[in-house]
């Protein structure tokens, strides 16, 4: 079995791939953070009370500007690079992770809408790594961190599965066709293929419902059953990336798998 630090290294590496892609994607659409864009700072700022002083107001303008977003994205990549290069658990690593976490939190404040589950999971994973890996950490807290990541992943899958189980649209299989029949999350060829195949729709829906709902069992089942869940998960996220364009989910969620494997081994 790998050591806990080796597990954290894997978790961080996979998460870093996703975060890098995501950061570069934001860089590609940075004009949407201009005053005219969907991520306009002018609108995002409305969440907060208007400052009384014009100097503070001017500072807020700068902090919510497109230029500030560019700076945040560049600093993010630098902090991430430093975290990957620094010896895991060292003071330098902790400093890099502190900058990275602050950056993520600041970027979350900057964006009003548009976050998805992959952003949430990536933030959870990286904050946990920051809290649990460093000069301050003991074996106990490292273990707690891996448990936390594994449990959050299991909560995610189980919540998604149970929410589908209580949905008539999902139980009937109609949800599968309905989602694939949209330009936002579907594909015309997938919609055409599924349209006249209600049996397949139902099968696909139920396999997602069952595996997601039962996913927490991967923590307690003996091999290879635990691995079967992870294999399904990886293929599921790959399919979501290919058909639905949800590319970031693959990296965000598979980043939790090393933690799941470790926790499962300790339970076993």
């Amino acid at each position, binding site marked *: 079995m790998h050591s806990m630090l080796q597990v954290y290294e894997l978790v961080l590496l996979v998460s870093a791939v996703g975060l890098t892609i995501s950061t570069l994607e934001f860089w590609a659409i940075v004009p949407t953070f201009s005053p005219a864009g969907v991520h306009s700072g002018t609108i995002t700022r409305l969440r907060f009370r208007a400052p009384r002083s014009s100097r503070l107001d001017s500072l807020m303008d700068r902090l919510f500007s497109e230029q500030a977003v560019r700076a945040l994205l560049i600093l993010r990549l630098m902090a991430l690079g430093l975290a990957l290069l620094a010896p895991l658990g060292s003071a330098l690593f902790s400093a890099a992770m502190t900058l990275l976490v602050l950056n993520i939190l600041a970027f979350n404040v900057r964006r009003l*809408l548009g976050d998805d589950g992959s952003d949430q999971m990536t933030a959870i994973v990286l904050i946990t790594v920051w809290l649990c890996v460093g000069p301050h950490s003991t074996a106990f807290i490292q273990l*707690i961190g891996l448990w936390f990541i594994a*449990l959050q992943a299991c909560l995610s899958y189980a919540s998604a599965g149970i*929410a589908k189980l209580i949905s008539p649209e999902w139980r009937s299989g109609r949800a599968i066709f309905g989602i694939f029949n949209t330009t936002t999350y579907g594909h015309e060829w997938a919609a055409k293929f599924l349209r006249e195949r209600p049996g397949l729709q139902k099968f696909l829906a139920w396999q997602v419902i069952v595996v997601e709902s039962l996913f927490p069992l991967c923590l307690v089942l003996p091999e290879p059953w635990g691995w079967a869940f992870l294999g399904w998960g990886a293929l599921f996220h790959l399919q979501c990336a290919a058909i639905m364009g949800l590319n970031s989910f693959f990296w965000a969620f598979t980043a939790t798998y090393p933690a799941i494997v470790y926790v499962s081994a300790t339970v076993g």
Partner: protein
Amino acid sequence: MNAIIAVVLAAWFVVSILSQFSFKWFERVRHRDVFGLLPLWTFFAPNPGQSDYHLVCRDKLADGRLSQWREVELNEPRKWYSLLWNPEKRGKKVLVDAVQVLAELVTTSGAQKSALMLSTPYLLALNVVSHLEREQGATHRQFAIVETFGFTPSSEMEVLLVSGFHALPREGVGNALHASSL
């Protein structure tokens, strides 16, 4: 320090569990989550999104004539490499989220149009359309959010929201929003 971290993670996990349920009281907590740390893992369920949303706008000219509706491009077709690289998904997601908030305001709280006009999603949509190029002589702009139902639609498209006419800033004056409506 390690004990504090353990308590923080335990509390975060408990709150994460609570976050999955639609408790009304929890929405007040979520509203304060500016850092986005309260996860919501119920993707596409129990009500899966099975439609596309479109933001459209038109201008009113000084002589009272109305221009054609035109769409704000947010739904670009996905490319073959989108499984690896898909920056366009972010813009679409913002609109989806904005519409969901607006729909909730209209249906569950029965918000009056005047209250809707002050909501952030409404202002977001208004801000986006207000910055688009205008028709010659345009003085006001109106936007709408339209819902369509797939590549082979089983239903007619639905108009979810039509705004009033909002005054456009005089050209060269700046981009301040004018919330007066006719």
